[in-house]
């Protein structure tokens, strides 16, 4: 089943090692909260800010989740050292959108998708479903933050070790006016590609309307 959605805002960020311009001090003024944010959470709140979204349903996606927290925990267990409680609470896949909800006191539904290379395709599908269910705008974010020590031991294809893509959509009865073409986005994790396709199709196009599969 396909339905039509107006694309309101889009945003993309990427860096080969670390995104340096995430504007955290302005977006997260409380230092205690800012210090706890994971890299994925920093990317998430930056992209949400770029999309001017602070209240409403959120669908977040990541194929590999919170890699630094996971590496810290497994490393501590191996070394028979104490695990940081903060690392454990930050290790779940819904960490990034949960910090977004804390920052904005957003009490709406948050879902996190983790479907490997199909993650952002499934984020689009799930975001579309949530937008139709609530008849309201939805923020969709997909990011990967895999810049951890020794990542080269397993990373063979991703140039941008930190990257994220976001869009906000709202359901519409209007006809689709924009066609989304599947592409390879060199350097980006494949888990982001489907959403990067949408951003590429809607770039510099006011009032883009796309069809999304539920």
């Amino acid at each position, binding site marked *: *089943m396909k339905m039509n959605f107006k694309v309101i805002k889009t945003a993309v960020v990427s860096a080969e090692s670390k995104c340096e311009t995430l504007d955290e001090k302005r977006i997260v003024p409380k230092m205690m909260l800012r210090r*706890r944010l994971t890299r994925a959470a920093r990317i998430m709140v930056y992209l949400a800010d770029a999309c001017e979204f602070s209240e409403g349903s959120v669908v977040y996606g990541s194929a*590999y989740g919170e890699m630094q927290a996971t590496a810290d925990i497994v490393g501590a267990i191996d070394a028979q050292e104490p695990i940081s*409680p903060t690392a454990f609470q930050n290790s779940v896949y819904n960490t990034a959108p*949960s*910090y977004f909800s804390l920052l904005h006191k957003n009490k709406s539904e948050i879902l996190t998708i983790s*479907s490997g290379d199909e993650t952002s395709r499934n984020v689009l*599908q799930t975001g579309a*479903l949530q937008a139709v269910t609530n008849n309201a705008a939805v923020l969709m974010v997909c990011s990967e933050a895999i810049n951890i020590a020794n990542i080269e031991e397993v990373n063979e294809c991703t140039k941008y070790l930190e990257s994220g893509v976001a869009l906000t959509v709202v359901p519409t009865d209007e006809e689709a006016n924009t066609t989304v073409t599947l592409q390879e986005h060199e350097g980006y994790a494949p888990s982001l590609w489907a959403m990067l396709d949408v951003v590429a199709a809607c770039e510099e196009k006011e009032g883009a309307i796309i069809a999304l599969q539920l």
Partner: protein
Amino acid sequence: MSKNRVFVNAYESLSCAGDTVALMEAIYAKKSAITIDTTYMQDHKAGLGSFAPNEFFPSLISVTQKVLEQSDLKDFSETLLIVGSSVGGIGKSEQIFFRDKSYKNINPKEHAISVISDTLDKTFAFKDSRSISTACTSSANALMLAQRLIRLGAYKNVLVVGADALCYTTVCGFQALGVLSTQKCTPFQEGREGMNVAEGIAALLLQDTQETQSIELCGSAGSSDAFHMTNPDPEAGGAIACMQKAIEDAGLETSQIDYVNAHGTGTQANDAVEALAVETLLKHNPPMSSTKAITGHTLGAAGALEAIIACEVIKQQRIAPQTSLDVPENAQVNLPSVAEAKEIKYVISNSFAFGGNNTAVVFGALK
């Protein structure tokens, strides 16, 4: 737009209490399946729920095969798979890292959450699949999405699978948070020690067609606490909101809920807040119990496993009693000590997770 009804037409599970038949026998006999483990942590005991070390993925296929055999489907080629899991394949990654002291031999695809849907898809060839990972609400959220998709007419059949294996990260992680019990957990008990981490697999086939043995998935909803990463809102705002919205989504009044299958982890914070939420919202004081006293906390699988228990409670018309309870902390909630026979039309099942992620699902007997 069409609004189809959604029916649970087949299900199976595996937990430390065994398959679904054995699980319900254990629940009604108040016989906890938790064992006290000394292998995961040096110098620390932990109550854990394990069914068969190293048998997780074969069991995943076996449980799913049993659901297919119960169903009216000849295969899953027209079925969407939605998996809910919080750890995916991290157990295997841990073993490799502990052995090699490097990531070199870790296959990222086998580390990810999606290893569960990939494994099932290779065996059963689903029409499509997706995986949800919202910690301990993962498979409850999978049920919520499945319900919404079938309601809209996007799919006729959706298989929801909740699956999480035991691993060092979760056992040691919950120990680091100071919420792990050294004994069998005692949900809602005054002075309770904490939770038991457990593994579990639960699969439910949801369809838009009604069968004689169907249970209806009537309503579902989610909310966020927006309060703290691990501690629930002490005023229970998020828990109350998702329960209330799920009951409204089912087209019911709160007074129509006949039994609450609680999230009831056995931690101080969760149980106090959940009891407050039920006391505040459900003024008619329906029976409530946490079956985690039998199964332990199966994390991402818990929502699906407890959905099966909710369906069984409706089918058997018999309340699941609260195991391991002597003195309740909150005397205002109804925690039954015996497996009483009772007319049960509607059951609500709660799931709460890290990040203040809350989900409630409502099941009903056929009208």
